[in-house]
């Protein structure tokens, strides 16, 4: 169906009607209705086990709803960072980003990757196997991977987890930079951190 217009210029990026997801006999999400328009910043909150991760996986197409309807954009427009940075531990940071860069057909791959590694403070570690990186460094690398193809829709699951103070500040300014031009869906248990940027909030129980 055609995407519904919500705001003056806002086109619906994600549209959920009666969305539900169950794993076997366990119901994780039920009867969710929401919309994310182009340019929105949706914060998803809720206690552990409330289905934040499941909802985000549905929004990027990694999982399929078991009831209701869900419209999401083409996956080439989506950048997703979950609990795992999704990098091969036996390959170096550079090799990982190169692999994704090729799969996403990034033009000027070398420059783009170099720029991201610089910005997230990983340039010096670029030739180390990612298996030897700290959890915080891996999270930064995961962010590089997510931003690599300049996605129109960014879906981030607890992006501040395992980042140190410096990394968290870096992410703050990165999100502020992305805010005007991107659509964001961010799951967090600490909504105050992104409250300044948020345009809407979805609380899961």
């Amino acid at each position, binding site marked *: 169906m055609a995407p519904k217009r919500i705001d003056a210029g806002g086109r619906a990026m994600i549209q959920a009607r009666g969305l539900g997801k169950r794993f076997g006999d366990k119901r994780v999400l039920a009867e969710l209705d929401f919309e994310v328009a182009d340019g929105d910043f949706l914060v998803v909150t809720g206690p552990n086990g409330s289905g934040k991760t499941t909802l985000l996986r549905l929004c990027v197409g*990694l999982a399929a709803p078991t009831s209701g309807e869900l419209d999401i954009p083409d996956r080439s427009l989506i950048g997703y960072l979950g609990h795992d940075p*999704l*990098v091969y531990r036996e*390959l170096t940071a550079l090799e990982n980003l190169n692999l994704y860069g090729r*799969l996403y057909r990034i033009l000027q791959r070398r420059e783009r990757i170099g720029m991201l590694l610089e910005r997230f403070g990983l340039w010096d570690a670029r030739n180390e196997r990612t298996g030897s990186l700290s959890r915080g460094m891996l999270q930064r690398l995961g962010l590089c991977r997510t931003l690599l193809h300049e996605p129109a829709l960014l879906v981030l699951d607890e992006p501040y987890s395992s980042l140190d103070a410096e990394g968290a500040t870096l992410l703050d300014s990165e999100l502020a930079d992305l805010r005007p031009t991107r659509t964001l869906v961010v799951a967090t248990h600490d909504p105050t951190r992104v409250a300044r940027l948020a345009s809407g909030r979805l609380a899961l129980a």
Partner: protein
Amino acid sequence: MRRYLADAAVLARKDVLLELRGRETLPAMVLFVVSALVVFHFALPGEQSRLAALGLLWVAILFTALLGLGRAFVAEREHRLLDGLVLAPCDRSAIWLGKVAATFVFLLLAEAVALPAFQLFFSGIDGPTVAAVLLADVGICAVGTLLAAMASAGRARELLLPLLFLPLAIPIMIGGVGAATVEHPARYLGFLGLYDVLFAILAWASFEYVVTE
């Protein structure tokens, strides 16, 4: 088409690079197939029959392939990396093709040791046998890779793959052993080719459904 093949090549090269770094799968396959041949020597009765030995060669190849296939998606499974590949905008079947290519290379290398070892321990190997092994490899890798992706989604993954794979491998065994033992192997080779084409198309078309919901 060129992009599709390029994607598959990038993914296959990644698997070869991972193997070069980790050196986990290929040495195990080589050691396993040689050990199996030695065990088979003692399993055969004193007066060795060439036919029985050839049959066991096929068993050794099949189980070595299973060993490699069981490892095929380990890297992807450990840190949910399949998510990363599935999210990438390339055709999902390119993930399958890349994995098939990498597994095929590993299996070929293991056989490059196994066939001469068989020649040394048991008896000579003729052209039709080599041709049959190559044809069987294609089918084994095409079907096995899809089933390995399937099995890695289940709970009892290590157990599941052989159970899923062996019934589908029976026709390969019939064709392979037939081609290696009869005088006119043409129809067995033709059958193996038919199996390859049919099941490769089926696996190629259905891989997307295996890795997505």
